[in-house]
């Protein structure tokens, strides 16, 4: 299971890449493997306000519908339009090309609540939930 060290993680299996007051968000390698073949991603509109723990996107595999929860609060700046026509990118490249949104942070302090790669690895070892 690939868990890049430079990223932060939520307990709901989203990853966060921090770049100043902007963060890029996607789902982890573990999450995409659990879902199986992703065939649809519902993207929010840029400008949408999101709050920590609330669903802002939906990723669907052949059999499952899975809510994606915001790991931080803020405003959606960009969405990965490529996923509209090629949702399988989430499986193929969960941490790079398969990013879902870029969020402008409302409160940088929220980043401290996220897990580092070691803590996320531990979470998975405990059974993933």
């Amino acid at each position, binding site marked *: 299971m690939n868990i890049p060290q430079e990223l932060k993680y939520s307990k709901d299996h989203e990853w966060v890449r921090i770049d100043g007051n902007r963060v890029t968000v996607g789902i982890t390698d573990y999450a995409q493997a659990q879902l199986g073949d992703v065939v649809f991603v519902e993207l929010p509109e840029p400008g949408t306000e999101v709050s920590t723990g609330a669903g802002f996107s939906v990723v*669907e*595999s*052949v059999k499952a519908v899975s809510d994606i929860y915001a790991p931080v609060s803020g405003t959606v700046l960009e969405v990965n339009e490529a996923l*509209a026509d090629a949702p399988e990118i989430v499986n193929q490249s969960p941490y790079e090309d398969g990013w879902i949104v870029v969020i402008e942070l409302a409160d940088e302090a929220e980043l401290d609540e996220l897990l580092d790669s070691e803590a996320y690895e531990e979470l998975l070892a405990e059974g993933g939930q």
Partner: protein
Amino acid sequence: MTAMKTPLYETHLKYGGKIVEFGGWLLPVQYAGILEEHKAVREKAGLFDVSHMGEVLVKGLDALAFLQKVVTNDVAAMTDHKAQYTPMCYPDGGTVDDLLIYRRSMNEYFLVINAANIEKDWQWLQENSAGFAVELTNLSAETAELALQGPLAETILRTLTEVPVEQLGYYWFIPELLVAGKKVMLSRTGYTGEDGFEFYCRPDEAAFLWEAIMEAGKPYGLMPAGLGCRDTLRFEAALPLYGHELSATITPIEAGIGKFVALDKEDFNGRAVLAEQKQNGPRRKIAGFVLTGRGIARAGYPVIYEGRQIGTVTTGSYAPTLEQNIGLALVEAEYAGVGQTFAVEIRGKHIPAEVIKKPFYHRKGK
């Protein structure tokens, strides 16, 4: 009730199967991935464990008369070693189950029923057998079943048996033959919309048979296939799944499988209601649709026309062979015609859809 394991449970783990519970059974939803397995079955071959299915033997002088009463298709039309698909209905026309009947001889029939319905069907068959000279035996626990499906299924099977299986016609069976040295009953049947075979064998020989078939299929691209692609394959072929397109409150006429309801035979359970629906048309129908807007319809989602709910999605999915998001829905009959538009409510949004012809997928050739 704890979920049961088929005789192939350990084999599934060995092949990397991702286990889920289905109809009270622990079965693999996928091995390599649903899309890959789906493609293998359409283009090459896939091997399924369907040991969860139930089997009932009906034997006796009144076996035919009994079956004519409980199922809707014409069992008398069968000859020895023929298989037949049929719904089984309640007197009100609702569906108890859909099943396969194999005629072993004039007085002996082998029924294959849905896993989740075994107990219910067994009760129903027993209740209905009063007054008939028949003996019913529930063989579910002592029968394992494998399905080898796909255009290369025949080629693979020919390497495992001396019997000229290429001569076996669609919906015919061989009551006993050796496959990889093991005694099986073999039929040319399936639930994928492809050519293929189903094997019934002893539970303690199922794992051996599985390995032998996988080995023989290696050069042909055979893949182990899970429940996930079994569902997408049958769905593209618009084959009904009990609990979705058929249920105690959905008749076979509403489900669009009226050709398996034989009104020209003697009286049977549900006849009056089914005859009326066949003559005048049912009030609701299963319609096939494609979403013309973005989204995936799922079972249970409402179908909306001009702000009013006119039906419910029974199965919806991305269709791997068609590469479209399609569905089946039970809707008021006037909205079921090809070209009709309506909307499917997905997470509060109304996504446009259009009724298209069923089945969505039809294999070339035969």
